């Protein structure tokens, strides 16, 4: 897997060097064009604030109140019946809601049970295999002012669920 690491490390530096050089040969005024494009970045980021604040407030209230722990307790018997370690269950609810929250939880599991335990492996795989659906949705739609996201949320949550179970069963099979 070393070559993938190498590509990852080189990708951004190469883009930063190659794109301006290519533009220069195409007679683009490189610095002026860069500044011109960069201007949009600020307003785009600022435009996302209301969307993200709204979402983060709801998620934060939901988590702090203990409503999430209740959901986890509710689902625990079913999970045990499927031979899934119940310790990883909160991750299934956290992953689509908050990237930092689920990363913190994964780190905690790795710390407690060890990175090479089954729980550690499953948690790592769940965390790495999907992105934070609500965040991606809020940021991408917020940036262009889409109010009606249609079925995008359902699709995102569905794939999170599939990813969660896939991660567990792949780990149980592989390790």
């Amino acid at each position, binding site marked *: 897997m070393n070559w993938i690491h190498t590509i990852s490390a080189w990708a951004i530096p190469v883009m930063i060097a190659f794109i301006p050089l290519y533009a220069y040969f195409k007679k683009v005024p490189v610095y002026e064009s860069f500044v011109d494009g960069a201007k949009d*970045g600020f307003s785009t980021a600022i435009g996302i604030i209301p969307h993200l604040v709204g979402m983060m407030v709801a998620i934060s209230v939901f988590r702090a109140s203990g409503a999430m722990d209740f959901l986890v307790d509710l689902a625990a018997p079913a999970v045990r019946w499927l031979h899934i370690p119940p310790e990883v269950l909160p991750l299934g609810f956290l992953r689509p809601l908050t990237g930092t929250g689920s990363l913190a939880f994964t780190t905690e599991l790795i710390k407690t049970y060890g990175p090479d335990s089954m729980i550690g492996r499953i948690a790592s795989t769940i965390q790495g295999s999907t992105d934070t659906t609500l965040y991606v949705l809020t940021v991408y739609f917020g940036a262009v002012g889409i109010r009606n996201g249609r079925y995008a949320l359902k699709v995102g949550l569905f794939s999170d669920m599939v990813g969660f179970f896939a991660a567990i069963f792949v780990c149980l099979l592989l390790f």
Partner: protein
Amino acid sequence: MVNKIWLGLLLAGFGFAAAKGDINLVTKAAFEGAQTGVTVCFGLISVLVFWLGIMRLAENSGLVDRISRLLGPVVKFLFPDVPKNDPAMGYILSNMSANLLGLGNAATPMGIRAMQELQRLNPDKTTASPAMCTLLAINTASITLIPTTLIAIRLNYHSANPAEIVGSTLLATAIATLAAVLADRWYRVRQAPPPAIPPSVPSSSTAAAGRGDGA
């Protein structure tokens, strides 16, 4: 659906905090959440300003068009209603490759840029087009070749083999992405209006927006 989830999260939080007898939790969590939202956006400013600048160079030099023409046919089947050789395809491709390489801070600006291009093609500016939904589906599942953050954490906690999760992650992420693409296609076929239809009349677009699936 977003409206209901949002309200549901807030009300469930309120209800549980009240039942626990610790209603102050709600106030504290609400303002902490608001702060996180702003902090994350401020973090995005530097990333977006930088990458949108670099991408303007890629655009003005014709690089984006070239990528669209060269690699567009590869992902064409995912975005049937994006016109051939449209620059949107170039951004979609850069977003997908950045995700694949695990370049999180480059993937988001490229994805947003792709969304802006898709918005240009979108007849109804407040309702997501099918192509936007597909882009979202791919990004929420996010195929990743190496989960760099996770490997770093595992290394930190003295894993004997920090990278052993690369294979399991790749398999799980492939399954999740496949599920996302299939579900997206299913909804698109089931409820999307034919893509060739010109801008919808105002009355029908407000009706659609009022259905409650807003983002």
